């Protein structure tokens, strides 16, 4: 017994010591503690292309052009740029910028970063895929040459991250290594020109950042934090509890049902805003026989009337009101407002009209309905499975026999993706164009059959007119002519009912107002620490 008491006393003493010192250190600091569902995948800016990871890169690494919260572009490492000719762009670089390790930033770093990011192993290569060459003109001027006219080059520049050539070479890390082979040094260590530097990263546990004192714009930034700690908390309820108990200052996403509860809480507020991701349903329009109807030789979805019948059977307003609790914007287009090429006039959803739906089905010869399975992720989008669950009764009421196959995202994407040969008849998917331009969904979702087209066109919607338009849109430099073609392509797709767009989900961030003075939300659901101000 005595031994045990001694042990307790020792533990208590040590605990008291460490506790007091920890408190001292934190007393005067403005520490911003925030949480989201998962950790960043890695720190290497050229390795992964994933939402939360990309944001973290933006805190740490600089790019030629930065995207502001309102989606407009502002100079970062480039101070100005001009078109020399249709395929050549000249960028004047900022002088006197240093990396976190003190190395100076020059044109060589831009050239080197281009070479590194354009490797096939880089998941970020898509952003600079149209660039043929980056030329150094002098220490503070570069020229970018594209492989054809590229109207959206600038829009992609915020995804082009600049690394320090010297640092990368010192660590022998030119290659973007993933998965196998040796550990990728820049994935665990970081050295950028961004406003924050990495102090500590314990994967899946905490990522600690502090302001970079020598940042070129230090002092003029909105933020006043001394330290930021990102903690992944996968379980929704736990994340809400952590915010309510004051253990964290901010968390996202807030489960929609908890929004009113948090808003009623004294020191907590919920920031809501539209997100750029569009959630939609798609159908298999390619197979001659629907997977769910073996032996019949029929694929009802090949008939436009059947697709239209589905669209008219789904009550988007009810989903918005009940499942999304008002936190979504029902949509008629495959892109969100704010995406370059968005057409307000086409954004009206298909009319909810079950009667018309039944008529269309009868006309198409499916008055008695048919069986179909809805493939749905259950951990990817806001309320993804409940949305699918809500759609099922609506379709059942017009006679369609729908069963649900909801599963975790890795299995879902495998099934509907090319890995399993688009093994689906009817599926849910969500899409944010990485370039913030309509060309991306036209290529990836609405055309198929050529390299670079239709990687996620899982139902293989195929209309030669749309394909032809997409090819022209790729290189059309005149904004007005380009917009006209985008509008036309969207119109055709809408008339065809190629997909059923459902909505843009809303962002919901939970913020403690007793510690956070101001935080600006960007429509791509991420936290840019430049815009966080503590009390």
């Amino acid at each position, binding site marked *: 017994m005595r031994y045990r008491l001694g042990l307790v006393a020792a*533990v208590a003493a040590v605990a008291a010591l460490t*506790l007091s010192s920890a408190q001292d250190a934190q007393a005067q600091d403005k520490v911003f503690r925030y949480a989201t569902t998962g950790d960043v995948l890695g720190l290497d800016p050229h390795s992964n292309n*994933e939402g939360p990871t990309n944001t973290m890169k933006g805190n740490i690494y600089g790019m030629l052009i930065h995207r502001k919260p309102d989606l407009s572009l502002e100079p970062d490492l480039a101070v100005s740029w001009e078109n020399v000719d249709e395929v050549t762009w000249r960028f004047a670089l900022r002088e006197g910028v240093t990396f976190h390790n003190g190395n100076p930033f020059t044109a060589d770093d831009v050239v080197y970063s281009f070479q590194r990011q354009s490797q096939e*192993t880089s*998941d970020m290569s898509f952003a600079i895929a149209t660039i043929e060459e980056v030329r150094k003109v002098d220490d503070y001027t570069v020229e970018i040459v594209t492989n054809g006219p590229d109207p959206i080059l600038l829009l992609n520049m915020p995804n082009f991250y600049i690394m320090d050539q010297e640092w990368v070479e010192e660590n022998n890390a030119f290659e973007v290594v993933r998965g196998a*082979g040796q550990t990728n040094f820049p994935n665990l260590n970081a050295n950028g020109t961004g406003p924050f530097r990495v102090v500590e990263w314990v994967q899946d546990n905490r990522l600690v950042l502090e302001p970079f004192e020598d940042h070129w714009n230090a002092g003029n930034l909105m933020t006043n934090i001394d330290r930021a700690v990102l903690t992944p908390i996968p379980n929704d309820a736990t994340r809400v509890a952590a915010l309510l108990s004051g253990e964290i200052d901010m968390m996202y996403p807030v489960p929609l049902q908890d929004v009113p509860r948090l808003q009623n809480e004294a020191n907590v507020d919920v920031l809501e805003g539209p997100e750029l991701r569009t959630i939609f349903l798609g159908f298999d329009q390619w197979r001659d026989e629907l997977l769910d109807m073996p032996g019949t030789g029929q694929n009802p979805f090949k008939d436009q009337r059947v697709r239209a019948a589905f669209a008219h059977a789904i009550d988007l307003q009810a989903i918005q009101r009940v499942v999304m609790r008002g936190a979504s914007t029902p949509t008629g287009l495959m892109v969100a407002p704010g995406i370059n090429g968005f057409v307000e006039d086409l954004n009206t959803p298909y009319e909810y009209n079950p009667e018309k739906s039944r008529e269309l089905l009868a006309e198409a010869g499916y008055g008695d309905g048919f069986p179909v399975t809805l493939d749905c992720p259950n*951990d990817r989008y806001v309320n993804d499975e409940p949305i699918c669950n809500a759609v099922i009764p609506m379709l059942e009421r017009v006679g369609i026999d729908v069963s649900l196959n909801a599963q975790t995202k890795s299995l879902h*994407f495998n099934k509907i993706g090319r*890995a399993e040969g688009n093994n689906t008849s009817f599926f849910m998917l969500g899409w944010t164009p990485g370039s913030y331009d309509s060309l991306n969904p036209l290529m990836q979702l609405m055309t198929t059959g050529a390299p670079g087209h239709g*990687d996620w066109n899982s139902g293989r919607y195929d209309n030669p007119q749309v394909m032809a338009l997409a090819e022209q849109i790729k290189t059309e430099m005149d904004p007005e002519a380009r917009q006209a073609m985008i509008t036309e392509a969207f119109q055709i797709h809408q008339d065809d009912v190629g997909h059923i767009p459902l909505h843009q989900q809303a962002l919901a961030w939970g913020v403690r107002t007793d510690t956070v003075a101001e935080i600006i939300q960007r429509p791509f659901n991420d936290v840019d620490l430049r815009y966080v101000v503590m009390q």
Partner: protein
Amino acid sequence: MFAFVIQRLFQAILVMLVVAFVSFSLFQFVGDPVNNMVGQDATEEQREALRERLGLNDSIPVQFMNFVGNAAQFQFGLSYRLGVPVEDIIAQRLPATIELVLVSAIIALAVGVPMGVYTGLNRNSPISKLFLTVSLIGISLPTFLIGILLILIFGVWLSWLPTFGRGGTIDFGWWETSFLTVQGWRSLILPSITLALFQLTLIMRLVRAEMLEVLRTDYVKFARARGLSNRAINFGHALKNTLVPVITIIGLQIGSLLAFSIITETVFAWPGMGLLIIQAIQFADIPVMSSYLVLIALFFVIINLIVDLLYYVVDPRLRVERGGGGH
């Protein structure tokens, strides 16, 4: 003795190989990791190239041989999700889980054994019945719900305890411990109670059953006849005799604590092995999943081996034939 040990060791290795093979072949089916590793904009050529680099296009026997060969040298490859060697990740996560499991095991024992003894000795008392019934309610709720209810009550409504994570941790080399700060201990309370509840009930019932059995044996009756005090009989003879099977079961239960920590760690965002494996499954992070299973198997095999050897030492009858009768 020597032959026995050799035989058991041989069997243990066999078990490990089988587990390695089973886990390995099962993981061929959890989904293609490539889709999780690349972004939405990656081309099909990039996906295929990555598949090739990861060795996913090798034949399954080749992949398995590579896996076993590396595992034998404690090299489990790089996590697809985190991009670092799996052995490093495990070294980082193991302390969190071990501390959680340890505290839970202690809670389960410290509460379960006395309750078991009490209910065994006082079989018909109302308090015993209450203990038994209440403990049953505790295990009639799924673990995840218990965890969330505890968070709601003690974290949110009462604001007494932290709701997630490990709180203040201090490094001892690679071992990050929460035992040395008040915050660390406070963070341990809710998850360890959540995890301990099931085992607590199990241990209580086991001790009770063993007590009931032992109290009926002849030698306890003799001890009573000899006029020994109740106290001496109950604790000196009866309890002592119940402990051998109890300890055995507890050893085996540590494994199931590890398994149940999957749920507890997910609910409490506890950065240990359980959270690691569940995230690995969602990501189809094959190297992490296989290593986890092999590690768990190693745990079990070692515990089984120790239990077998203990039996061998403790119970002379087993030197003739293992098994049969007993408990």
